[in-house]
C-alpha cells in the first residue's frame, strides 16, 4: 500500500521492480495511515478473517540490520517480525503473537485534539498538492507538521515535492529524541 500523493507516477516503478504478486494499492490520500494511526513507513497491520486487528501498526521490515546515519544508529528487526508473522499465518488465534485486548488498548491510544487537527490539515495539504497549488500545500504541510511533529509521513511526503529530502531527513533524524522506529514488542502472550 503505497502512501504516495504522487500516485502511480511515483510508486509504480517500485511495484514493477518488485514484480509484486500481492494486491498493490496506491493511497494518494494517505487514508490507511489516517485510519490506522501510522506515522512512518514501512508499517504493518495484521487483520484476521473477521476483520479484527490482530496487531496494530508496527515496523514491517523483512531484514534485521543496523544502519548509521549522521553517527546515529537506525535498527530494523525484520527477521523477528517475519517469524512472528509466519507463526500467526500458520496458527491463527492460537499464535502467541496475537495481542490481548488489554495489550491492544495499551498500544492504540485515542488521538489528541492536535493529532486530529493535524490529520485533517494534512489531507488539505495533500489535496492542494494534487490540485496543482503547491503554495497552499506548503502552508498546510507546515501546519500539520507543527501540530504533530512526530509524524514522519507528514514531513517525508512534503519533502518528496520540495527537494533536498535526504538532507532534510538527516537533519530531523539526528535531532529526533525518540525512536525513529519503535522497538518491536513481540513478547509472547502480550
Amino acid at each position, binding site marked *: *500500500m*503505497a*502512501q*504516495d500523493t*504522487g*500516485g*502511480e*507516477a*511515483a*510508486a*509504480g516503478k517500485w511495484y514493477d521492480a518488485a514484480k509484486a504478486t500481492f*494486491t498493490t*494499492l*496506491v*493511497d*494518494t*490520500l494517505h*487514508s*490507511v*495511515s*489516517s*485510519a*490506522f494511526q501510522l506515522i512512518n*513507513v*514501512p508499517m*504493518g*497491520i*495484521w*487483520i*484476521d*478473517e473477521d*476483520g*479484527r*486487528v490482530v496487531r*496494530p501498526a508496527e515496523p*514491517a521490515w523483512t531484514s534485521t540490520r543496523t544502519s548509521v546515519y549522521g553517527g546515529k544508529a537506525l535498527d530494523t528487526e525484520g527477521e523477528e517480525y517475519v517469524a512472528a*508473522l509466519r507463526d*500467526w499465518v500458520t496458527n*491463527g488465534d492460537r499464535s502467541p503473537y496475537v495481542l490481548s*485486548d488489554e495489550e*491492544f488498548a495499551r498500544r*492504540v491510544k*485515542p*488521538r489528541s485534539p492536535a493529532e*486530529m*487537527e493535524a*490529520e*485533517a490539515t494534512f*489531507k*488539505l495539504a495533500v*489535496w*492542494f498538492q*494534487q*490540485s*496543482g497549488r503547491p503554495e497552499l500545500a506548503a502552508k*498546510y504541510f507546515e501546519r500539520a507538521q507543527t501540530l504533530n511533529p512526530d509524524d514522519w*509521513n507528514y514531513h517525508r*511526503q512534503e519533502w*518528496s515535492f520540495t527537494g533536498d*529530502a535526504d538532507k532534510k531527513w538527516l537533519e530531523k533524524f539526528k535531532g529526533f529524541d525518540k525512536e525513529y522506529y519503535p522497538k518491536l514488542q513481540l513478547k509472547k502472550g502480550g
Partner: protein
Amino acid sequence: MQRRDFLKAVGAASLAPGAIDDAAADTATSPAATVLYDDHVVALDHVGPDSKRAAGALWIRKRDLPRVNGFALKPQGACRADLCIPIPKEMVRGDYLNLTAFAKKAGQLVVADAEARVWSFGEMQALGGGLSSSRMAPDVTVPDRLGRPVHLAGFRGKKALVVTWASW
C-alpha cells in the same frame, strides 16, 4: 479542461473514479465546495450562501449529506447505521444543513480553506473514536494501480497483512 482531466494532469492519476464524487466532476467550472472526508473527495455544486461569506461555515443541501458522510436526515436527526444525532433547528435553513456545525456536534474537527472552498474533516468521535475504541479494522477504500477501488472489507474471510511503504 474538465475537473477529472485537470486532476490527472497534475499527477493525481490514481484517484479512483469512486474516490471522487462525480456530481460536479464533469462541470466546466470549479465546484462550489470540495469536501475531504475519510478516504474520499466530494465535489459539491451547490452550497448555501453563508458558505461564501462566513469563514469556515459550510452549508450543504440536505440531500448531499449521505454522499458526504454517510448520514441521512430522518425525523429523529441525522442517522448512520445505529447512530442518530439530533439536529437543532438553527442547524437547518430550508433545504440546507450546516455541515460544519454538525461536525462540531459530532465531535469532529474541521480544517477549512474557505477562500479555496475546501473543507477537510477529521475523525468523528460520535462514531466511536476510531481504532482506539474498536479492534475492528476500518473499512478503507483505496485505489489499485489502475484506479479501481479496493475495499479493505473485501478481504474478510482471509488473513490480511497490510504493509504501507512509500517511494519517498
